[in-house]
């Protein structure tokens, strides 16, 4: 599904190059569930953002669904992104001014779905995550776990092939975290969604089919189950 070849990212610091990602090569197939681990500052988020095309590497080749991302223009890249990728954040990143319903609906608006279609899709999502009763509340009126459910529902609404999650359970208690992980496993198994998550928890990492360990911007180890 995607392939990174000799990807690097560094920041110029005086005369030095501070490498955040240092010559990483990585292939991920469709249907995989990958967990990325590593100490703080090791470049996990940066790697995920590069995969999600929110950030650009300084060097290297990046292929996604057979497109050479490093050669695409901004517009084409964001079209590709819109079509295939959903993002979940540790800090949820819901829009405070919008209701639950509207937050979930927003990606559809940007992808030019018609009104009736949007309604049906959002209703379906609310149902599936059992948050119908909360649809008119604003994010500030929800608990952390509920907000993350909304964040995941929003990431999935447009039926992405690839779900990227940066510490999705980082702000949740262990029970809430477990529920989210179960949900991810189900999505991966039943709907065939490729998932890449960043996590600090060994336990959560084991939900994945592969664990990648980063250290100082390099892949230290990678094991498949």
């Amino acid at each position, binding site marked *: 599904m995607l392939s990174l070849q000799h990807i690097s990212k560094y920041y110029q610091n005086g005369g030095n190059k501070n490498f955040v990602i240092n010559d990483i090569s990585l292939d991920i197939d469709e249907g995989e569930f990958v967990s990325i681990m590593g100490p703080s500052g090791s470049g996990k988020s940066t790697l995920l*953002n590069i995969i999600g095309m929110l*950030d650009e590497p300084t060097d290297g080749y990046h292929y996604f669904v057979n497109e050479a991302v490093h050669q695409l223009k901004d517009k084409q890249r*964001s079209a590709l992104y819109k079509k295939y990728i959903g993002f979940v*954040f540790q800090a949820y*990143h819901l829009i405070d*001014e919008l209701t639950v319903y509207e937050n979930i609906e927003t*990606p559809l*608006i*940007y992808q030019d779905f018609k009104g009736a279609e949007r309604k049906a899709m959002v209703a379906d999502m609310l149902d599936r995550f059992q948050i119908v009763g909360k649809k008119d509340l604003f994010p500030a009126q929800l608990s952390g776990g509920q907000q993350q459910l909304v964040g995941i529902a929003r990431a999935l609404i447009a039926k992405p092939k690839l779900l990227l999650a940066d510490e999705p359970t980082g702000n949740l208690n262990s029970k809430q975290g477990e529920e989210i992980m179960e949900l991810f496993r189900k999505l991966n198994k039943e709907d065939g969604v490729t998932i890449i998550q960043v996590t600090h928890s060994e336990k959560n990492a084991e939900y994945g089919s592969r664990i990648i360990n980063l250290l100082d911007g390099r892949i230290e180890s990678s094991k498949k189950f």
Partner: protein
Amino acid sequence: MIENYFKIAWRNIIRRRGYSVINIAGLSVGIAACLLIFVVIKYELSFDTFQPGYKNIYHLVTRINQSDDVTYNPGVVAPASEALRLDFPQAKVAALEANYGSQLSVPANNSNAGSDKKFTENLGVVFIEPQFFDIFKWTWLDGQPSVLNEPDMVVLDKSTATKYFGDWKNAMGKILKMDNLLTLKVAGIVDDAPNNSDFPLKIMVSYISWKEHPRDYNYVYNWHATNSAHEVYLQLPANTSISKMDVQLKSFSVKHFDNQNAIIRTLFLQPLAALHFDTRFSNTLGDHLTSMATLRTLSFIGLLIIIMAAINFINLSTAQSVGRSKEVGIRKVLGSNRSQLIIQVIGETTIIVGGAVILAVIIAKAALPYLINIANVPQDIGIFNLGCLLFLIGIAISVILLSGLYPALIISGFKPVLALKNKITAASVGGIPLRRTLVVAQFAISQLLIIGTIVAVNQMDYVNKADLGFNKDAILIIPGYTDSISLQKMNGFKQQLLQNSQVKAVSFISDPPSSENGWGTNFNFNNSIKDRDFTAFLKLADADYFKTFGLKFVAGKSYDVSDTMRQAVVNETMMHKLGVIHPQDMIGKTIRIGGLSWSTITGVVADFKTTSLREAIRPIIIFPRKTYEAEAAIKIQTHDLKGTVAAIQKLWEGTYPEYAYNAYFLDDTIAKFYQQENQLALVYKIFAGIAIFISCLGLYGLVSFMAVQRTKEVGIRKVLGASVSSIVYLFSKEFAILILISFVIAVPVAWYIMASWLRNFVYRIHLSPWVFISAIIISIVIAWLTVGYKAIKAALANPVKSLRSE
């Protein structure tokens, strides 16, 4: 999608209530001010344009070159119209003679003149040729222009006919007396001229009636006497070249005028489209002219105000955009592209601007009745019309683009990763230099208007308090008439007045020392038959003139009591222009005007202001000539003014029962010289106030924003031991610097504009540095009052609390 944007925009506005209120308040006041300015300008520019073919209509005017002096006269000599018809057969030509101040009376059924219904009309009374209506379209409700071929016929406009006869339909065929000299028959009724006409003609007497009463109405048929009240209008075929026409008129002038004695008169065309704005010609048939400079100043002020309001908007939205970075980041991650974000921000701007426009209309509507105080607009002028609607749409669109586009570009350009990490700071939106520039621009505009206000107010104060060289206080002027019966009653009236112990002096005069009418003439001096090369201005009055107005003699004394010109008094300017150094040397010299006989100079009076302070003092000859001394000037004691005036009125009405009493105080008319300038001073005051208001709103918004942004910084500083005053200083320093920079920009611009305005006055204040210094002091005080509250509040905040909230 659009609906979604508006929903979000609305919520954003509600959530950031404070900023929205500041934005909307500033903007709506700005737009309301601009709308009112637009109404005034639109009205002024519309003058006479309703006349079909107004582009082919011209006013024939006279240019008089005299040594190196050029004057313009709106009138032409009486024989010109006939000669034009002969020499320019392609032109339609019409002449009229305006009468400023006539009494019209509707005869009572008994033959007692005292019980006539009397009306005084200062404007709109003319002797007019029927051809006028071939050139100008008028709506005739009854009768037709040809009735004006007959002598003693009068055509009234609808409202005058209604005023005189109860109902205009009753007016036809009725009798009307004019100045108790003419007996006229109402032979036609026309609809009222629109407000935006320079021809508000009310009483149109056939032109031939003027010719038949040459003595009463000063009808002179020769090529020497240019009469400013005798106006000629032409309509030329549409394809006529005006420059060629002016060349032909030049040779026409050379052919007909006897241009000797260094006075050269030339006729030329003033397009009707330019008439309303041509202030070279001081009098007009209508009630006012408007200089293009005034309209330009107004537009300029309007533009400045709207720019200020837009600046607030840009400032606050870019400042706020920092707080919106998270939302924008998320939207980008969710797939929004740049143009969609731009549309969203523009949408929010549109809602705010839309709200401001609606509020502006309400404000403008409420302010409309006060507009007549600063502009010559009619009472019933409206803002609900197509022009205003288009203007508002235009303003709204430009403000939306001006103030929405920049924040939209900034916000939509955020990098999503940075935005999500909350790494967008006020500095990284690149807004700080821009925002500083905008604040400087705002303050520069405010200071410009503050300086304008100080200068205009000071100058008008100077003008109002200026020593005119005579005493204008408590002098009652009663316009009277010089028909033979009235003249006979003059002396008796004066004696009776003087019996009243409250009356200090009485003089019969042609006009007071300061007066806008100027009766100029060529003259001879010291028995030389050669005309002097400058115009002398005449004041005709009896020998009590000097005592009544408190004029001081520098040499000699008043002339003796006389009904005709035998002796005369001149002013110092006259003496200097004649090259005489010692006033004493003027005494006994002779002077002669027009066709009169030589007179001896008996005295020289100290200079007094002969017109408004816009103009230099004129060379004046004062002499008696009873038949021109129509006005009574009465100097009275100031205590029990009311009772004295009432007694004088009673006496006057008893003496002249056939005339209406129209007395006024001299100082009121002198104040009226400066109506336009006083209005301008008021405009400056109002708009400086609005500018200050808008810039304070903006400043307040910005400081509130800064206070929020720097809560943490202030908290840390306080924990580290900073004092309240050092923190207040932190907030104030930046604004003080910005005000200083704006001052440096505003001063030269303000100096240039106000110095050129002051040049309208020959007598004027000096632009002292204090004007500018007070402007900056006012700005700093006002800015500090705005900033200070927030700064102190931020400084006093509990540091523990502000740190915890982070």
